[in-house]
Structures are given as C-alpha cells and as structure tokens.
C-alpha cells in the first residue's frame, strides 16, 4: 500500500523535475569560457611604474615585446619560492624580445629593497606610486603573474609560484600572441 496519494506523487515529481531542470541549465546553459581573469584576451591596462633604481617605465614603451608582469611582496613566501625561477628565466629570455617586470605591492620600500638584494631580480622592479595597478589588474593576492603579448593583449594570468617550465609555456604562448588563449591554471 502506497503512503503517498497520486496528487502528492505528481507534486514530488514536478519538484524533482524543476530542480533537475535548473541544475541542468546552471551547469550546461551558460557556455561562457572559464578564465582566471576577465582581463585575459583584452588590452593590458596602461601603467607607469617607479622603479627601485629611480627610473620609470610605462607599459606603452614596451609595445612589440612580450611582457611578463609579476606581482610580489617581500612578506610572501611563495614569492621567495618562485624568485630563482624568475631570475633564471629572465637570463634566458632577456635577449629574446621578452621583458620581465616585477611589481611590488602592499609592502614597505625598505623590505622590498632588501628582498631584491637577497633574491636577485636583475630585471626592472618597481611600485605604482598611485597604488592602483594591483586593482587595475584584478590582483587578489601574491604572487600573481600576467603574460602580455607583443600587441599589448593579455594572453594569460597565472596565480601562484612560477617554475621555469610554467614561465616557458606562458611566455611562448604570449610571444605567439594567442588571442583566444585562456588560462589552464
């Protein structure tokens, strides 16, 4: 003998159907590509950095070059972890139309300077005096790295410590200017 009458059974079936339909739409209805940053595939926001050696550098000056933009802080342990890989890769790419730029955020200048002395970084390192670049690039933590192609389009964003292999992979993608590339990280 059934506990539920026919009306209740139909009601339960309708509820199950509605929930499944909603789940189906939620999972398969929106086919937008998942990217780590909405900025991937768009023009990299312009910036001017004040470098620790006193010079200044703007993104617009680097047009035609592949750019690796690495956000870091001296108190960040994963940043220390990736520092040797960044240094090695910079040495490897510096004569190949690839520019590495380190951007120090949420830090004290003295701590940042001693970090650079200790962990190397022969490539330009600087800060944004306006303290806006981290928001302009949608940074949520450090280390985070953007790869920008020669035409100024962001090809990838990588969250977390880099290795030489990861750098090779994304630098080559950026150099190839794969406009529709989406990050796999």
């Amino acid at each position, binding site marked *: 003998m059934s506990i539920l009458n026919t009306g209740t059974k139909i009601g339960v079936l309708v509820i199950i159907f509605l*929930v499944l339909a909603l789940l189906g739409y939620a999972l398969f209805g*929106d086919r937008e590509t998942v990217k780590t940053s909405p900025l991937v595939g768009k023009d990299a926001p312009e910036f001017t950095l004040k470098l620790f050696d006193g010079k200044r550098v703007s993104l617009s000056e680097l047009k035609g070059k592949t750019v690796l933009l690495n956000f870091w802080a001296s108190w960040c342990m994963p940043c220390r972890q990736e520092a040797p890989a960044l240094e090695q890769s910079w040495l490897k790419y510096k004569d190949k139309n690839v520019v590495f730029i380190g951007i120090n955020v949420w830090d004290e200048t003295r701590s940042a300077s001693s970090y650079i002395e200790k962990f190397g970084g022969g490539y330009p390192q600087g800060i944004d005096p306006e303290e806006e670049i981290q928001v302009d690039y949608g940074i949520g933590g450090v280390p985070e790295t953007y790869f920008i192609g020669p035409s100024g389009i962001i090809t990838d964003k990588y969250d977390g410590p880099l290795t030489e292999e990861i750098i090779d992979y994304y630098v080559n993608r950026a150099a190839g200017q794969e406009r529709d590339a989406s990050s796999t990280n």
Partner: protein
Amino acid sequence: MHPQRTRREKPIINMPTIKNRKIAAAILTLLFLIFHQGISAAESLDDRVNEIAHLLMCPVCQGQSVAESNSNLAQDMRQIIRKQLEEGKSKEEVITYFVNRYGETILASPPPKGVNWLLWVLPGLAIIFGGLGIGIYLYKSQSGKGSGDSGKRPENRAADSDYMLKIDEELKRHES
C-alpha cells in the same frame, strides 16, 4: 529738548544697525549655504563610496564586503571608488570597472543569470514547496486526529466497528 534729542538720535543709531543686520544676515546666509553645501557634498561622497563598497565583495576576505574589510586590497578599492566618483563616474561605471577586473563574483548580489539563477530561484521554490509540504502535513495530521472517533463521520465509525468485529472474529478463530 530731551524728546527731540532722542528722536534725532534714534535714526542715527538704528539706521546703520538695520542695514548692518541685513548685510550680516545676508553674509551669514551666504556663508551657511556655502558651508552647508560643502558639508553635504562631502557627506554625499562618503555615502556614495560606502554604498558602492557595500555592493562589492572583498576578493581576499571571507564573506566581507569592501566596506567592511580592512585588508590592504579593500582599502585600495575604496580609494579607487572615491577617486572615480570624484572624476564624475557613475555608480554603474565604477561597479563595471571592478567587474571587468575581478569578474561577477565580486558583486555582493550576483545578477540572475547562469548558475546564479539557482541562488535567486531556489529560495523562492523552497518557501513555496516547503509551505505546501507543511500545509499538507498539518492538514493530514488534523484529519487523522481523534481516530478515537470523536472527529469521524458516522459511516466511518460504522466501518471501523465492522472492521474491529472482523478482527475479533479472526482472533477467536485463530485461538480456537
């Protein structure tokens, strides 16, 4: 003599006073308006910054809005909201700036599209069907109450007694 002197003195003393009062009142009114305008403008900017900061979630915090968080990033974001409002950008433009950089997950109230539909629809469905379920349960428990007969119709009572008689007969047969 005395009344004449007072009559003469009155206008000499009072005329400039009235003029002065009018001028002073006008200056005070003007100053008040300028000062008040300044204060209300400052307040409204703070209010607008706060309003937008409440609509954005801090990307590095657990369930805190940009207005509530004291993280470095939230402070930077509040600063940028203020700067953009001062530049004359609208609330929508400021919000779009952040969505373009952090995605829609930064919104405190995600727009009803894609997966977000579930967030908007499921609570309503839960209330409707939960209410229906509770209603049905209450109705059934009410109608089931008093199976000791007081709430039952006479024909049901008769059917019940027939049924009880049959059970008795069955039991007797089983015992024998």
